[in-house]
């Protein structure tokens, strides 16, 4: 057998196209302005859609676009690509009507979606949420609060995880949750933009309040009570995209460092070692990410591998930006590395903190060992 590490031609094409787009559109002036003023890049998003760069029907294309966008500017890149956030939920579990009404306008760029899971009192512990969907005469009533929601104020609707019944027992606390599609403009929905983020400042982040929001039956996704599993399956997909963000950020930092060495003629060996170590870590993170993505895209995800890719790549993004900045000194501070350093941190937090990823990895491995399976 032969392991082929080359990207298929069509994916390679998308990658080149994304690279070209990012270099042309995410110049330092634009990126700095959106970062400083915390502006969402509406125009760039439109352009990226027109260029055909946001197509979740081509997951490898999106993955490589994520990498190439974040390589140049994570805040802008993510803002654009996350505008379809959550679409996989409908792709996997939605009805034709739901897909037509909600997913299609998002995929053609005319609408924006958001996923609302995290709450003020429950982040990593998803089953600890307290938002409630209570049965009413003609559907459900939604009450609760969500926190740190990407696209929160610019979205057209939310995929909301909420409790439809109390947990049956302490052990089964992940039972009894459901996912509902909730229009941003329905009565009872209020949003508040969170300002002053450390990084990824072009992205829109908000806290959301749902107060007695009427949700019709047809807006529940899939089966009642299975929301936790749907969200976990979705995270299994979105986490490989976060891994790709990290790979892109690390590559961007390495680009800056290489550029610095090239232009300054520095040939100190300490700097060369940093370069070598960074490049090695980056390559390992990339291979891990592509392997995890390959399984996800074949509808055969390995949660342990996905979590490894997410956790490891995030760590690599953080350590590579840190050492690049440290070794470039004030030259680094004056370059976009300053931004990359701030942008990299979130990769260890969102879509499951590194701590959660480690638990997923360990528990998956232990479970397999107990079942006597071979550990891959």
């Amino acid at each position, binding site marked *: 057998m032969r392991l082929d590490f080359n990207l298929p031609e069509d994916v390679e094409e998308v990658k080149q196209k994304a690279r070209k787009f990012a270099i042309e559109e995410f110049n330092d002036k634009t990126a*700095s302005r959106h970062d*400083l003023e915390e502006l969402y890049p509406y125009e760039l998003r439109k352009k990226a859609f027109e260029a055909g760069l946001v197509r979740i029907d081509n997951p490898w294309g999106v993955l490589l676009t994520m990498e190439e966008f974040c390589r140049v500017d994570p805040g802008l890149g993510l803002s654009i690509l996350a505008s379809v956030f959550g679409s996989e939920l409908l792709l996997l579990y939605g009805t034709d009507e739901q897909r037509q009404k909600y997913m299609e306008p998002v995929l053609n760029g005319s609408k924006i979606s958001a996923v609302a899971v*995290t709450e003020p*009192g*429950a*982040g*990593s*512990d998803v089953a*600890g949420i307290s938002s409630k969907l209570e049965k009413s005469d003609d559907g459900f009533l939604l009450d609760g609060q969500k*926190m*740190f929601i990407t696209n929160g104020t610019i979205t057209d609707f939310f995929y909301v995880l909420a409790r439809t019944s109390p947990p049956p027992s*302490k052990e089964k606390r992940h039972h009894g949750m459901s996912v509902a599609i909730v229009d941003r403009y329905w009565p009872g929905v209020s949003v508040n933009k*969170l*300002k*002053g*983020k*450390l*990084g990824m400042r072009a992205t829109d982040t908000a806290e959301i309040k749902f107060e007695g929001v009427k949700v019709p039956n047809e807006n529940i996704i899939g089966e009642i009570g299975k929301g936790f599993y749907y969200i976990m399956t979705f995270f299994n997909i979105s986490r490989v995209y976060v891994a790709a963000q990290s790979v892109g950020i690390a590559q961007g930092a390495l680009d800056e460092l290489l550029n610095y060495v090239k232009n300054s003629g520095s040939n*100190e*060996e*300490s*700097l060369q070692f940093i370069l070598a170590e960074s490049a090695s870590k980056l390559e390992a993170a990339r291979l891990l990410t592509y392997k995890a993505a390959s399984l996800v895209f074949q509808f055969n995800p390995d949660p342990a591998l996905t979590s490894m890719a997410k956790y490891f790549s995030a760590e690599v993004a*953080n350590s590579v930006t*840190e050492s690049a*900045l*440290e*070794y470039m*000194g*004030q*030259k*680094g*501070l*004056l370059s976009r590395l*300053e931004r990359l*350093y*701030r942008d990299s*941190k*979130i990769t*260890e*937090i*969102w879509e499951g*903190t*590194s*701590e959660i990823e*480690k638990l997923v990895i360990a528990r998956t491995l232990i479970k397999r060992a107990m079942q006597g399976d071979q550990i891959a």
Partner: protein
Amino acid sequence: MQLLKQVVEEFSVKEIDPVALKIEREGVTQGILNSLAEKGFLGALAPVEYGGAGLDERGYLVLLEVLAKHSPSVGMYVLLQNSLFISPILRYGTKELAQEIVPGIASGKSSGTIANYLLSGGKISIEGSSLSGTSDLVPNSSAQMCLVLAKSGNDSQLVLVDGGFSIVSDSRKLGFRGLRYSTVSFEGAKAKSILLSGGGEREVQNLYNDSSSHVSAMALGMSEAALDMAVSYAKDRQAFDAHLIEFQPIAFSIARLVSEFNVYEKYLYGISSVKEGMMLKELVLEFSRRASRASLQVHGGYGYIEDSGVERFYRDTMALELLTGNRISDMSELSKELLGGESAKY
């Protein structure tokens, strides 16, 4: 020393804490400068006859550590005035110059800064007493006075400039956002006084080496604040029906960091040579970044927002290293100090 620590702590709680976030957004205010001056903190290292507090080295470390814990920007401002402005003026300037300049700094009526191309890579040169060129990332750039390391033929001079320089553009700020950083033009500026007519580079490097313990005190103050916040958040926040502190990975990580902090802090107050300061700085700069990153991680999304006061330590600890030194030259200096002049050449 305990008494001084208490005084600075009380001062910080009363004067700095209520405006700490405002300082980050709007800068170190004149009000804060006045209260710092009143306590003698702006001229901490200056002798009493120059209007200073005449603190000894250890007292100065206490001051920096506590200030940095409450507001890294304020700590940085005090470090800049003392370690990098008053100190070199006292060391290289005449008595008359010190008498003229230092009281104004100590009283907060005037302020100083330093433009050092060894860090920023800008190009400033001097001919006679006329300066030319620009320097990037000059901290506290609205200061009236600036010490300038300037090239003079094959040599370098350290000169004092009083006005006559101008801000070209403001720089982005990774850290210490309460201070202004700018690209400053020295075109047409005149040296008021030439402190060193040759060998400026070596002496400026020495100045930064000498301030290693000061930088370490700042790093430790910030680490302490970040870790205090991590501990109280981990004791308060619940997930999976338990407090975060109950989970081994979090407890182990914080316990190790707190241990390191205590060991380093003890060492800080026993420092008796420049070499020891340099050794500690090498360890605590990295440590403070690790501690602040861990604190942010414990806080999750909440630590990511400026209002939490957590994420600034993540930025400020990195900025501390970049603004007070250069990784490769600092390590080369340390290697030569510990291993001899032949070391770390390539």
